[in-house]
């Protein structure tokens, strides 16, 4: 029930993000979702792509520092209080969110929230128990 994500260390200087996307494009990798956390010195770019291992090896070959991590993708109805319902359940279950980001599905019915949890197994158990749709990796890669 987990989704593979790659994280890339990016120094805060011009052209680095462009270089990442160029490298992925040259390798024929498609980006599904992304988030960038940054400081004045550096950023951490997190990506979900259609071919994780290919993306990782292509970026490493270009000298980037890349880690693979597992995140959880949850489908949430694209309407007010949709996200609250999820966070409320997690809060009640004392599961912490390290970070999260979202994108809207192509058909526009649902949003997908990508979560990094301190305890992903417990988070998945809670979400499933409360009737939320936790997406399989394959679903997300091919969205």
């Amino acid at each position: 029930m987990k989704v593979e994500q790659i994280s890339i260390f990016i120094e805060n200087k011009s052209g680095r993000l462009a270089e990442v996307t160029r490298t992925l494009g040259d390798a024929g990798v498609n980006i599904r979702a992304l988030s960038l956390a940054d400081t004045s010195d550096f950023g951490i770019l997190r990506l979900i792509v259609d071919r994780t291992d290919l993306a990782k090896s292509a970026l490493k070959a270009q000298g980037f520092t890349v880690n693979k991590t597992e995140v959880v993708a949850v489908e949430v109805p694209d309407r007010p209080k949709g996200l609250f319902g999820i966070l409320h359940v997690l809060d009640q279950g004392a599961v912490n969110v390290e970070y999260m980001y979202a994108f809207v599905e192509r058909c526009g019915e649902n949003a997908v929230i990508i979560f990094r949890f301190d305890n992903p197994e417990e988070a998945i158990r809670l979400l499933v128990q409360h009737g939320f749709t936790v997406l399989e990796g394959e679903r997300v890669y091919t969205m």
Partner: protein
Amino acid sequence: MNKSPIIDPATDRTPRIWDPVHECMGREELELLQMTRLHATLERVYRNVPCYRAKFDAFGVTPGDLHALSDLAKFPFTDKEDLRLNYPYGMFAVPLREVVRIHSSSGTTGKPTVVGYTRSDLQTWTELAARFMTAAGVTEDDIVHIAFGYGLFTGAFGLHYGAERIGASVIPMSSGNTDKQIMIMQDYRSSALVCTPSYALTIADRMEKLGIDPASLNLRVGLFGAEPWTQELRREIETRLGIVATDNYGLSEVMGPGVAGECLCRCGMHIFEDHFIPEIIDPDSGRTLPPGEVGELVLTCITKEAFPMIRYRTRDITRLDYAPCACGRTQVRMAKTMGRSDDMLIIKGVNVFPTQIEEVLFRIEGCEPHYQLVIDKVGAMDVLEVQVEVNERIFFDEMKRQRAFVDFVEKKLASALGVGARVKLVEPSSIKRHEGKAQRVIDKRNPSI
């Protein structure tokens, strides 16, 4: 020789000479004194310090081979490595029970250099500090504000006792807390400021921000040392603080501040030759260079009891001028130091070797020793940035952990170096390599003196 008296611009008086007998001694008489003292020192270290005995033996020289001062060049050099190998007390020439004070300086391997003083050494140090402080115009009427850190470093204590000996009123302020420093300068009417030249500028900056006119203070003279500084910086400090800024020189291995100091002619720092014999050598060949040439300063202590250094390689690049000085002192003058013959950096007055940083990084799990040091000035203060190349083992997907890692490295560096460093993570291979060897240091401060 120009005999016209020098007037202290801050007091309109002719500054006195603390110890005219020694400071104005004729060259011939001085050399005789040096010869006697040098011979006694060589005898003593040969007898009491196994390291010197071994080194002299390896060179095939004994104290008996000293027939003229020029014979000193036959003796081996002493360097920081000897001090490291004999850490902590191996270079002491007296039993510890005769040592009444211990100081230290930063070293290359995380271990500091330990130096000791007998009661008589402390008296000498106090006298010599009084000499150069008097030469800079300090008198018993002054209120001496010491903003060097009190502790293992020699700076604060050296000038503290020198100023007391002169009869000045000493404020043992120590370093840091600039606002409080300024308040005390205003309220206690400090007239002589002792600190690093960059800290003097920090004080000037802060006073400007607080809207305090330096002319409203009693400050008239500054005694600045512990780091190299330029004539431009001198002019800036003088203009902005409205004081006479003087330079002095010393290193803890040799004694601390009081090895040499400027008189108000400010044409070089008089080395107190009745206690230290200076030589200038070619740092590569070790050959002694003729007077006037630029090279590495080598110092021999000829009166120290506890920790006499024989031909100690200071690694400071300078030149000596034996021409008589208009102030009346006959002792040789060394130019402001022009650089180092090793890779030592002086950051906020603290000695830092790139190898110390390398060691800290080596010990951190996952850290590779691909680093670069960038030293710059922000305002008047030195800022050290350590750039570390990131790799998968020290790259975390969570910002919280990534920041925690940077904080951890910064704490380790600060405790090893004794001075704060900012850590910046950079992408792998972004630090330029020259023939496989990284360019370790980029010093953006004005290095030319």
